[in-house]
């Protein structure tokens, strides 16, 4: 286990190697939050609520989702896999006496952690203070939110890394654009599922992606409660297990058929 912890530490060190990178990230995070707040504020002009969602709730949703997005985007497993395959470095990974998947998870969680501390969280706190919106949930719900956000993070990561492994079959894939679009639509990253037309919401409900941003953010805004909350957390937990099994299965198959590029 120690080795994976060391990978996590190295990733933290690595992500602060370029200080400019951190500043650029903070500015980016801030710009996105401000942009989305402005968009929703404009949409709500003259209305106190839409579909039963108050403007305050919508703004809070946007802010917390942006924090989660900032953390989730700190890791880029598809790009990592494509790079490893393209440059042939996957071969030395296979030769190391550790579990490759666990090592990826360790390294990327280190990166996510450092960006959360250095950029996502401070930016969120600044805007949260500035917007002067009170927290609608109690401490227990906050814990549930954190749990749900972590589950969401795992779902996204496991699915993305599984997709990344496809680059071992198709060496040039460029699947990233389709993939990001699907995720950002169905996860509720741009528009909360509350505002989806019924048919689209039905699709979103059977996909794993809403567990990434929508479920934790809905908990945070206090919209998910009671049996519905229990149901969503159960479904989310099932998707965590399912996506992890998918990842494991993909890697077991993939590592068997590694053909390293280059003579």
């Amino acid at each position, binding site marked *: 286990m*120690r*080795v994976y912890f*060391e*990978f996590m530490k*190295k990733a933290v*060190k*690595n992500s602060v*190697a*370029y200080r400019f990178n951190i500043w650029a990230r903070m500015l980016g995070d801030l710009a996105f939050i401000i942009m989305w707040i402005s968009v929703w504020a404009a949409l709500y002009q003259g209305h106190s609520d839409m579909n039963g969602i108050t403007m305050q709730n919508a703004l809070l949703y946007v802010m917390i989702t942006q924090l989660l997005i900032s953390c989730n985007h700190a890791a880029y497993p598809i790009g990592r896999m494509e790079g490893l395959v393209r*440059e*042939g*470095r996957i*071969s*030395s990974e*296979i*030769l*190391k*006496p*550790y579990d490759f998947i666990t090592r990826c998870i360790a390294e990327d969680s280190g990166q996510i952690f450092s960006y959360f501390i250095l950029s996502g969280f401070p930016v969120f706190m600044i805007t949260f203070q500035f917007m002067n919106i009170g927290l609608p949930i109690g401490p227990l719900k906050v814990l549930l939110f954190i749990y749900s956000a972590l589950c969401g993070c795992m779902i996204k990561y496991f699915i993305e890394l599984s997709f990344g492994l496809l680059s071992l079959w198709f060496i040039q894939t460029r699947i990233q654009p389709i993939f990001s679009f699907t995720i950002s639509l169905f996860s509720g990253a741009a528009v909360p599922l509350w505002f989806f037309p019924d048919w689209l919401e039905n699709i979103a409900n059977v996909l794993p992606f809403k567990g990434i941003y929508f479920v934790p953010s809905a908990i945070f805004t206090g919209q998910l409660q009671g049996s519905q909350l229990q149901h969503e957390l159960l479904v989310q937990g099932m998707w965590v297990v399912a996506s992890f099994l998918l990842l494991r299965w993909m890697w077991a198959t993939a590592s068997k058929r*590694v*053909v*390293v590029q*280059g*003579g």
Partner: protein
Amino acid sequence: MALIEINDIHKEYVTYKQEKGFLNTFKGFFYREKQIKEAVKGISFQIEKGEMVGYIGPNGAGKSTTLKILSGILTPTSGEAHIAGIVPYQNRKQHAKKIGVVFGQRTQLWWDLPVIESFELMRYVYRIDEKTYRENMEIFTDLLELDQFSSRPVRQLSLGQRMRADIALSLLHNPDILFLDEPTIGLDVVAKQKIREFIKQINLKRQVTVILTTHDMGDIESLCNRVILIDDGLVQFDGEIEKFRHTYGKERCLVVETKEPEDIDRLVLDHGQITKREGNRIWIHFDRDQVSPTQLIPHITSQIEVVDLTIEEPSIEGIVSRVYQDKTKN
């Protein structure tokens, strides 16, 4: 039993034919013609503990494929490989602890972190105990002057320093076997010397078996006592370096300096060929099997007045380039 034993290894790659032309590109989307390329066509050899073997051959001969099979990355289509009793591609992790691998064109170091961080990390990856770690770091500092650049980020290192760090890193866990794929590629003369000296020392002190592919025959000459030449997926030669020279290096070169440059025009040879002429000096290449120098020299001195004579042994570089060229001609 030898440390490394491979027996009749074959490796086929399946590729798909890419046809030229605009329409064919679309055709290829629906239907692609399968092509099987046999990169290795039945290779066998044995290597004993402590040997340093140069594994040479032109580009695309099958060197890297063999190395990848030996290191456990690739599974052969048929044939067997045993390294210290283990089948590398079946027990990858177990095998991995006993080998060190350096691919000269790729680094295993963390690009943005100081060199020492990568070493610290490998210490945990291979579970190296404190004492071994410290001892090894001392050796690397002694032989490779690792301390001069260990606190610098890898991206700021020169290629020679990076290569030194990469080789040291691959030896940190005291492997029995070291696979080096072009370890001196792109390095200057001094950096090459340092790396060769280090590999030699490690081999002497620790009995590490070294298998080295390279296109620099200087590496072979200063390090290896044995060469395996592979081409077209087959072993063409396997033996001591002297035997290699003897088998392929039949050609010698006689450099003759005459008193008068015009004398050269009068010279008639029954054997050998004048390959170069510069002022009053000529270079005569001859086949050692057809004519011996003791026959050739009197033949020349009887015709013209000679001031100086030297016989040049063929360099490994020269021999290899001729062997490769002959192959491509066939």
